[in-house]
């Protein structure tokens, strides 16, 4: 568990969660507050910058750092809730398909194949247009697009575990199907689920940024990274910081989740763990 990947990834994730939870305490300014005298201010270390706005201001004179800190709220909320939804839906179907096999497996697997043949971006934009804008609908569309990934990967692992002799032994000891799934199989696939979950949070953050960039996510007065990029786009030659900083925030967050996920995969997989002699 002490691999550098887990440590660095975990540190980034914890830092981001702290930013999101304690945004009002950490942010130097109110992100909605407009300072019309100081529009498009550069960061404080550039010439003409001000210590009041460490990362400068945008075209409406709002503090970029504060918007970034508040933007973590939306990003992480969408990332976590969408990942939980996709995990629950995908894992449940995967456990049923992998354990029971037969026609249940065929039905679920065909559904997954069919679902995956739809291009994900088209599918999510179509869903958003159908549902209307809003964070809740962003989450719903991510869940509906990404559950298939979970289902496919977890199902194959469940099939491997379900063929192990300890599952047959549990049957012989009189365990029912639900008990076998929950007591014998689920604990064995949990490391995989945790890993996929962590990676899914990163994916969710990117999808949310894309949808808020095109204005399908949060309302205009709520700070979000995608929205910041969309607004700063018009002034990117005069004030490049406005577009670079939210991109960095997104990049670091997703990197953090990916490192953590990859590190956990190695740390939690008994096959990749070093054997004790």
């Amino acid at each position, binding site marked *: 568990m002490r691999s550098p990947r887990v440590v660095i990834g975990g540190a980034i994730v914890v830092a981001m969660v702290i930013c999101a939870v304690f945004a009002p305490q950490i942010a130097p300014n109110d992100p909605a507050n407009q300072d019309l005298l100081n529009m498009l201010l550069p960061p404080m270390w550039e010439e003409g910058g001000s210590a009041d706005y460490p990362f400068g201001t945008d075209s409406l004179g709002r503090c970029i750092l504060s918007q970034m800190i508040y933007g973590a709220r939306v990003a992480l909320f969408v990332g976590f809730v969408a990942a939980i939804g996709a995990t629950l839906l995908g894992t449940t179907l995967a456990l049923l398909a992998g354990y029971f096999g037969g026609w249940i497996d065929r039905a679920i697997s065909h559904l997954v194949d069919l679902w995956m043949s739809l291009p994900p971006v088209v599918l999510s934009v179509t869903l958003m247009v159908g549902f209307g804008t809003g964070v809740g609908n962003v989450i719903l569309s991510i869940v509906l697009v990404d559950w298939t990934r979970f289902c496919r990967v977890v199902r194959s692992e469940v099939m491997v575990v379900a063929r192990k002799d300890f599952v047959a032994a549990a*049957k012989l*000891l009189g365990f029912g199907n639900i008990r076998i799934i929950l*007591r014998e199989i689920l604990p064995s696939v949990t490391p995989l689920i945790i890993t996929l979950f962590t990676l899914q949070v990163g994916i969710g953050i990117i999808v949310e940024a894309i949808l808020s960039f095109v204005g399908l996510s949060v309302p205009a007065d709520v700070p979000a990274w995608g929205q910041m990029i969309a607004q700063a786009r018009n002034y990117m030659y005069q004030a490049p910081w406005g577009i670079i900083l939210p991109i960095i925030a997104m990049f670091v967050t997703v990197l953090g989740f990916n490192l953590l996920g990859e590190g956990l995969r190695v740390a939690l997989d008994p096959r990749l763990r070093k054997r004790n002699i």
Partner: protein
Amino acid sequence: MAPVLTFNDVTVTARIERRNIDVLREISFTLAPGGIVGLVGESGAGKSMIGRVISGLLPENFSVSAGKVEFEGADLTALSKRERRALLGRRIAFIPQEPLSALNPVRTIGSQFSEHLRHIGIEKNRHRALMIERLQQVQLRNAEEALLRYPHELSGGQCQRMLIAMAFAGEPSLVVADEPTTALDVMTQAHIVRLIAEQQKLHHTALLFITHDLRLAGHVCRDIGVMYAGDMVEFGPAPAVLKAPSHPYTKSLLAAIPELTGPRRVLPALSDHMPGLASFAGLAGCRFSPRCAVKDSQCMATRLPARAVGEGHWVRCAERCQAAGDAPVGDLIKLPDAASTIPAVSFDRVRLSYHASRGFLGLRRSRFDAVKQATFTVAQGEILGIVGESGSGKTSVGRLIVGLERPSEGTIRINGEERMTGAVHLTGRDTQLIFQDPQSALNPRRSVLRLLTQALETGENYVPEAQRRTAAEALLRDTGLPPDCLERFPSQLSGGQRQRVNIGRALGAQPRLIVADEIVSGLDVSVQAHILNCLLDLNRRHGLTIVFISHDLAVVRYLCSRILMMHAGEIVEQGRTEAVFANPQHPYTKALLDAVPPDNADQPWPPVPAAERASMPR
């Protein structure tokens, strides 16, 4: 004649958790040109490490810290990686343990053989003729066709033949065979051993034969070195080591092997198990001493020198222990008799078939009969043995008995109750199966306590969690596990302990009938003796009916009052154990009995059928 290979006080040291541990201690032996030395020991003895010293493929942090390994006069440890690589394949060849994993699955046999020939410096235009000649020498049928096949299209035995042909192709002066027959069936083992011996004689190659089977080594090797926990405890000519073993470990190893002839006596089993690498540091003297019956403070504290006991025969044990270390003679085994007139199991013309869909849209279906027309009974309180090679259907019979498979045809009665065709019947817990591989049969995330009491978690046997500990402690005593292992997980146990937990879990359901599927096949002989005695004890004390499935005839003879021979899904012979062994009726039974290395090392083995003798290369 100068020896081909000399180990001169070779010590291999591993650096584990900032401590230096001697994984091999002062190993010395010589191998003459054309000679055969066998290295025998149980798992963890360090015998494969010797093979790795020769190949230079020691694990990370392991190194040869003292001594010299001389190969044809050159010190192997002083060679550069390049020089050593030049020797491998050309002068030193290896025959691996698992033929299938040693071959590349996506390349044909021919292309892999040809690459090897190129590596040892044979011109391309001679490859084909040479490959066919060599494959014919190892009696691979249709050698020309085999060259075009992929490894998975051949059987394990055929792949091993091909690897033997490859190993001897470069006319090496030394071949190292590391457990070359362990992954194969008994009948195939006899063929492979014969082939290796033939090739060895034909090319006058020196052979280092690594095996866990002392009896097999006795038939194959000229000299035998017995390994224990990184020490070579005894070395000498094969007949001397087998007939007059001098080290207490050799004696107990020999005593723990069930015999194929003579009266059946309870096997004396060593207590405990071989120490792991981490505990080597605490064993300054003889590493066997904690398990030795005749140890004293002197041999526990200091390492004893090698002491000659005969012509070329030495032992690392004190002279005073010479006579005292003999393993005790066990009591005669009394076979259990049927306790009731209702049979525990009765099969009436039972067939088990699998269907496979093939062709366009799976329209063509083909049928494979795993069990054909099986009719037999098992009496209450009896131990029945089912013997057969892999694929004979013996495991399917076991799964049918416990209800994990349903018969396609015929009736199965368990304790007089009919098990319905076409319905999985798993409500009664009075029949349990002990699975072959405890690694797969024990959920790695359950502790020993939760494994042993798994049967008490639900259904009619339900016991509240707080009271389960008492039940688990009783099962520990029944299976001979140490009391402190309840909180441990399967990964923290030794192979033998894991198998006991596996047995204990099945007993936890308080069954009247147990099916044991190859439960000792992966175990060392001293551990095997323990498990067998444990089963005998359970049968005697609790009147447990046991169906014992195995490929090992000696083990079945030791345990079972009646045996059932299976071949290709059919029961070819059944009867009382003594009768079947003394007078086998079916040709398959005869062939199987012939394929086992006999107890007496003087008896020539492997047998050479007359037809093949004529075609044998000279």
